[in-house]
């Protein structure tokens, strides 16, 4: 093929945009974003909570009443982590059900208008997204009390 051909790959922006713009694509993108968010928090969380091995003085300096990490910025950040977990967990269960073939339906004869695995899995998707949302709302109520 001509070496002068134009590279028409979408690149990283193709992870979020393009295709047939179905809602599942945005769940896929959000799953990545929340996963990366939770992972960044988690790696720092391991190091921060290791301070409990050095006794109450060390712990309270960071996490005690008036400690550095009790600042409202971090509290809001913690709520974001809870929300990310709520979504990532609900969507993760959805992906397990789909990727192990439990929620995509059986092969069928394609008759127009086509019904695909998207339609077959949509009920599971909606139920799990509502469950995730309920968890996030519950967490939000608790955070609002502080």
């Amino acid at each position, binding site marked *: 093929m001509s070496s002068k051909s134009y590279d028409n790959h979408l690149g990283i922006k193709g992870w979020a945009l393009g295709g047939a713009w179905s809602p599942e694509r945005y769940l896929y993108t959000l799953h990545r974003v929340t996963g990366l968010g939770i992972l960044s928090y988690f790696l720092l969380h391991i190091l921060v909570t290791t301070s409990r091995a050095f*006794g109450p003085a060390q712990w309270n300096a960071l996490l005690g009443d008036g400690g550095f990490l009790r600042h409202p910025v971090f509290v809001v950040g913690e709520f974001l982590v809870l929300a990310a977990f709520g979504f990532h967990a609900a969507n993760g269960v959805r992906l397990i059900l789909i990727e192990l073939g439990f929620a995509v339906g059986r092969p069928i004869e394609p008759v127009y208008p086509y019904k695909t695995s998207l339609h077959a899995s949509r009920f599971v998707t909606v139920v799990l997204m509502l469950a995730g949302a309920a968890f996030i709302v519950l967490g939000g109520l608790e955070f609002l009390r502080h």
Partner: protein
Amino acid sequence: MRHSRLWTWHILAGLVILVLLGLHMVIMHLDEVLPLAGLNPAGGEAIDWANVAARAKLGFFMASYIVLLGAALFHGLYGLNTIIGETNVGAGLKRFATACLMVMGVALFVVGTYAAIAARGLAMKG
């Protein structure tokens, strides 16, 4: 290497996290909304030292922290490795990233496990 093995463990680790991190979230953030008394025996905030020490005394929490730590490190770093593997950077850079993530995972597992065990020893003494 059959990739299905790593992926199966990724899924199993995800299920472990679903249960243990779910419990962790309930104890830390839903202790007031949900009518579950006794999760924070000393009262007050879940992250007050008294509550942390009370949980550290229990073998269940020490064990579950270590299991959650291992499962979450594997699940999270495998996920990150997958994302890096799907970008269009060079193959050499991808291999280097995989090696870095493996070293990081083992190191953090050692640090976290030490903390869980040492905190229990500290709580038992005090």
